[in-house]
């Protein structure tokens, strides 16, 4: 048995060790490691951001590079959540007489958004900064969020969105929060590079990271009231978007029927492979819809570029993706923006 070595800093070796623990889904060891660091005097904020958060980012990369399975990614995420919960159980809220002093904040992931860990980390960071935090969970339906606002009257809503496909729902949630008089801070990659879409959707502020959100909320909050009555609000979504969302089931069903003709390998798909393909076609339609809703081609082009890379890591030929794009495009000949976007996406996919 070796003497206990006091660790005061999160370095590469420690991060690697922690990654190996969550990689095995060893929740208990991960939690023990985190609590040990806390005992050694490492600030809770650093553990959350530099260890739990940074590791989660690596987990995502490992999955994208096909080094980890989805199941393993889930196990690692669960271990991260457990470690975070252990840490939360150990750190009392700060503030005068140990009570929150900043105000109350409601934290939610947008409807359909299942990436709960980043929001949970933010909840913890805000609590450590003296906020009373109500974490409403992953995938919070809009009306549950609004009911909560009326019941508790918080000083802010922090809304997390990691996927641009949820932007229309994020828009609905933000609009409803504004109508209820509660200012919104948006966070997460779903709001685009530099959060450029957050403001268009009506958010009062945007933060790239949990730490940024804590800083932003610590000064000049709430922001001054701005009337929503002005007629020149953002005008999002058009008839192409509406058509795409409405006809989603038919688009996918038809594409699946024509799949084997366009992509002969699909002839031998079993049920599970067919389900996955239908799901992937669904993603194409959803990202296309989000791009049309926001009027932002980048949403769709980034998605297809990223998908091509992920497929390449799994030895799926780029033709499979191209076939999928064409199958959708063929059904959208009357919708110029959508067809044009599909065409652009298809030309940027590598030939082989």
């Amino acid at each position, binding site marked *: 048995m070796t003497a206990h070595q006091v660790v005061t800093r999160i370095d590469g070796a420690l991060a690697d060790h922690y990654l*190996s*623990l969550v*990689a*095995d*889904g*060893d*929740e*208990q*060891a991960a939690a023990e490691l985190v609590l040990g660091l806390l005992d050694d005097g490492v600030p809770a904020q650093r553990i959350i951001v530099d260890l739990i958060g940074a590791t989660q980012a690596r987990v995502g990369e490992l999955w994208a590079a*096909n080094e*980890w*399975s*989805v*199941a*393993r990614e*889930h*196990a690692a*995420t*669960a*271990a991260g*959540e457990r470690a975070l919960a252990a840490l939360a159980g150990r750190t009392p809220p700060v503030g005068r007489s140990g009570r929150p002093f900043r105000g109350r904040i409601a934290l939610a992931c947008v*409807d*359909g958004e*299942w990436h709960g860990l980043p929001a949970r980390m933010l909840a913890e960071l805000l609590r450590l900064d003296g906020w009373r935090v109500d974490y409403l969970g992953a*995938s919070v*339906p809009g009306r549950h969020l609004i009911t909560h*606002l*009326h*019941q*508790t*009257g918080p000083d802010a809503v922090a809304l997390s969105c990691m*996927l641009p496909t949820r932007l229309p729902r994020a828009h609905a949630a933000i609009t409803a929060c504004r109508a*209820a*008089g*509660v200012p919104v801070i948006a966070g997460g*990659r779903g709001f685009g590079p530099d959060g450029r879409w957050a403001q268009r959707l009506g958010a009062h502020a945007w933060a790239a990271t949990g730490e940024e959100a804590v800083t932003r909320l610590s000064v000049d909050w709430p922001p001054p*009231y701005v*009337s929503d*009555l002005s007629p020149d609000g953002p005008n999002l979504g058009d008839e192409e978007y509406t058509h795409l969302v409405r006809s989603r*089931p038919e688009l*996918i*069903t038809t594409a*699946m029927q024509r799949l084997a003709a366009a992509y002969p390998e699909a002839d031998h798909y079993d049920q*599970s*492979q067919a389900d*996955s*393909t*239908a*799901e*992937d*076609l*669904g*993603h194409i339609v959803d990202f296309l819809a989000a791009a049309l809703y926001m009027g932002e081609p980048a949403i769709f082009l*980034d*998605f297809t570029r*990223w998908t091509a890379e*992920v*497929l390449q890591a*799994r030895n799926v030929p780029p033709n*499979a993706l191209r076939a999928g794009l064409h199958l959708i495009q063929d059904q959208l000949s009357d919708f110029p923006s959508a067809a044009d976007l599909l065409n652009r996406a298809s030309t940027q996919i590598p030939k082989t």
Partner: protein
Amino acid sequence: MTALLQASFLTEAGHRLSASLNTRRVVRTTVELAVTHLADAAVVVRPAHRRQSAWTRLAPGNQIEEGTLRESLLAEVPGLTEALGGFPPIPSRWLDPAQAPAWLVPASLGPIGALLVVPLPGNAEPAGALILARGGPDAVFTPEDEMLARVFAARAGTAIAAAVLYQEQVEITAVLQADLLPPELPRVDGIELTGSYQAAREALRIGGDFYDVFTPDDDNTDTVIALGDVCGTGPEAAVLTGKIRQTLRALRLVGTGPEQMLHVLNKALQQSGRQSRFVTLVVGSVTRSDHGRVRLDLATGGHPPPLILRTDGTVEEAPVSGTLIGVLPKTVVRPATVELAPGELCLMFSDGLTEARGGPAGSEQYGEERLRQALSSCRGIPGAAAVERIRQLVSDWSHGGHSDDIAMLAVRAPTRTPLSLRGGGAATPSPWAIPDRPPRPRP
């Protein structure tokens, strides 16, 4: 203020005051609006409750402040007792600002030049009083100002009163709901328990599905788990789930086994006289057995059989069956015993899971086959991660539009961590194979 400005002020006031049903927020909005359009400083004082009055104020150079004061102090503010008593407001010129107590507004305002106190009319009783103050020796409230303040106060009072009413209802609902929410699961040594509950989208957070866990006590060494589905959704169904959970808890205390529990519950429901109220249920007695294994004695009544995930990834159905509870005078129960090796998992679920409609065409049921595949992909991962993954897959399937309650309860025999990992030794190779299906795009 011109008529046009007045109209736009009252429009904005109506819009903002009606936006929230939260008392605190409506009151804060009231002082904000009052300071923007009517006075230099504004205080809302709410009627005394247990001899304390809550107040909210906004003055120049300050954030909104909130607090409470003793009822006896209210009389120090000229005109306040009358306003809170529901009497017509006293004209400003009759109120001597010099008599206003020092605590009323912060010193930053300077001496109060003019004071106006108007009632905030509520539901048959005042919702509070609005105190407006203007600084400077020449300050006055003209009769036009007073009229505008009264019109504004009428709107603010209505909004506050509605919010108060709503809060009262919310508090009652919360109390009634508290017992019907799924329980926080206890930690049981050597058994991993995970629960998940999603109420139907349109409903409250409660519904007809439920689960419960009863930990070992002085007389019983086993852990009893139950998951069930009462016909129907919403509060009506939820109330019955509360009764069933309590019945099961009592039966457990007298040492009744799963099979007998179902028989007794069947009789109890039949005798309760409510028509067409039935439930499907799975009950299990969970004990630890040798070598980290977990043993489940299961009995079901009309419920989908639990699925068991084995170490090699195969998924089996627990060989149990039984008839609906609460319909027939005599229920038939065929119990079974299941053993889980470390890492194996037994999933109990309500049919809202397999019947979730969605998929590419939008109307296809998720189905047992997909559930089996999803479960199979959870090989080797902790129970919490497995349940979360299935929950996510089903939600993706139904695009979040599930119309029925979904409950899941997983029992897992924990894996023991290889000792080499504790000391930071070389990690064992991953037990998880990379799936050979195309991945789900997810940037």
